[in-house]
């Protein structure tokens, strides 16, 4: 579980803080004449997103569209979401001023956005500078809140991979592990693509998609290690950067979702809208591949130790998730011990990349 530091503050103060902010969510709901509920199957559990106002719905739901399910009465997690601009509301001024001060005095913020003073075992709070997203969860009641000032100002990476912090906190409690990895394969089994940014995860995932493999992730997903290693898709998003990348993927190029912002942002694609038959909600994990860009023509697989896989998977996951620590690395250790690991030496003849992965899957 995500470890809350013991600040020595009474439990009821954390609960009062949660209720205080929730009262402002309710104000936003009242001002917007109600709420809109959307349900998603995350991992294999139902999650409810309750939006006050319409500002955040078009920003946050496309990436999750492949997981959408009909109304359910028993969500495992309920998230209350609002922005001030579309609801015509404000955060309490004391909180608003506090968040502004974190922007100037970011040394008081944990390295991964944690607000340690507002975090204990039950209540976790994080504030992400830049997009300025406030995330709070009550892990006992499985209730969470997600706030931004202006939904229109959300950056492409939040639109592409929304609610990472809240989903990580919740997943951590429920036997899933949020990880930084791509995932492609077949319904019967596929591979994780691990490694820091720039190693070729996205490209590998997309050449596999264009070759007809199932696509579960290019960046973030959930995994489970029991009873068998299994990856669950979170986002049906793909991202590319630069004209060269767009030329490389002619099938995708017409479907950029953020054409007007390509000067500053990566191109974001929502695959569920254009290739729903290739978007997977998950599959068993047969191997973990560490993509490596090379100048050679051929794509090759080179076996690698479990330690090397852990070093590729764990730091880039842990450094992005508020509160992730010893439990997360233990789960990742278990996972890398369950399946073989390979360096995937990416050849310049990219058509051979999916063939190589399919060859591995058919031998496994």
């Amino acid at each position, binding site marked *: 579980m995500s470890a809350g530091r013991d600040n020595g503050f009474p439990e009821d103060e954390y609960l009062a803080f949660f209720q205080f902010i929730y009262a402002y969510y309710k104000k936003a709901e009242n001002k917007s004449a109600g709420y809109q509920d959307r349900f998603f199957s995350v991992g294999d559990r139902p999650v409810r997103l309750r939006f006050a106002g319409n500002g955040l719905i078009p920003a946050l739901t496309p990436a999750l569209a492949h997981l959408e399910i009909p109304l359910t009465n028993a969500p495992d997690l309920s998230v209350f979401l609002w922005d001030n601009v579309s609801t015509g509301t404000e955060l309490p001024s004391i909180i608003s001023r506090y968040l502004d001060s974190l922007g100037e005095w970011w040394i008081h913020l944990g390295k991964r956005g944690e607000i340690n003073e507002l975090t204990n075992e039950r209540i976790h709070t994080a504030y992400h500078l830049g997009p300025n997203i406030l995330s709070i969860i009550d892990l006992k009641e499985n209730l969470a809140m997600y706030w931004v000032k202006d939904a229109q100002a959300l950056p492409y990476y939040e639109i592409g991979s929304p609610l990472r912090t809240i989903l990580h906190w919740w997943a951590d409690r429920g036997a899933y592990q949020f990880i930084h990895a791509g995932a492609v394969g077949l319904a019967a089994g596929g591979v994780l693509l691990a490694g*820091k940014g720039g190693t070729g995860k996205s490209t590998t995932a997309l050449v596999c998609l264009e070759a007809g493999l199932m696509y579960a992730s290019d960046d973030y997903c959930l995994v489970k290690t029991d009873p068998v290693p299994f990856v669950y898709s979170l986002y049906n998003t793909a991202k590319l950067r630069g004209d060269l990348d767009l030329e490389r993927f002619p099938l995708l190029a017409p479907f950029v979702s953020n054409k007007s912002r390509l000067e500053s942002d990566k191109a974001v694609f929502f695959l569920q809208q254009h290739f729903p038959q290739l978007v997977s909600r998950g599959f068993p994990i047969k191997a973990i591949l560490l993509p490596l*860009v090379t100048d050679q023509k051929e794509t090759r697989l080179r076996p690698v130790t479990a330690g090397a896989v852990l070093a590729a998977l764990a730091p880039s996951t842990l450094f992005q998730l508020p509160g992730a620590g010893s439990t997360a690395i233990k789960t990742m250790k278990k996972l890398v011990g369950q399946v073989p690991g390979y360096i995937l030496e*990416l050849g310049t003849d990219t058509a051979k990349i999916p063939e190589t992965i399919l060859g591995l899957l058919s031998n496994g």
Partner: protein
Amino acid sequence: MDTLGYFNIKKPDVVHETIDGETVIVNLENGVYYSLRNSGVDIWNLIETGANFEELTAEITKRYRAAPDDISKSIRELLITLQKEGLLQVTSTRRTEGRAPQTPAGYKKIKFELPVLEKYSDMQELLLLDPIHEVDEDGWPNKVEDGGQTNVGGQG
């Protein structure tokens, strides 16, 4: 730097796991991670039990074939490096319950290889920055320059 007292892994900021003869250590405070192999794995696992310098040296000497002075010098250097990197705390009393595991009599010693702490600082940018942080501006397949790996502590 201190080799007196008992060594403790700095929790919760430092997390670690050992698999297949390699220990991966992650410092969540600064975004740096490390790898230890060979005798370094044994030394790290003994540190986790709260051992002091004498206990570490005694145990490693029972497990590895080398001049005791060489082993003791290597352990001292590794401990100093681990402290410099902010991975260990030193306390005057043992914090961990129990004692360091005892190597059984008659244990077949293996050749001692210097413990090398490999340090990786290529992911520090993930902390507090744009979390989507991928290929360089020219797009794939242009490599992003690797932040690089170094051996620290002058032992490698």
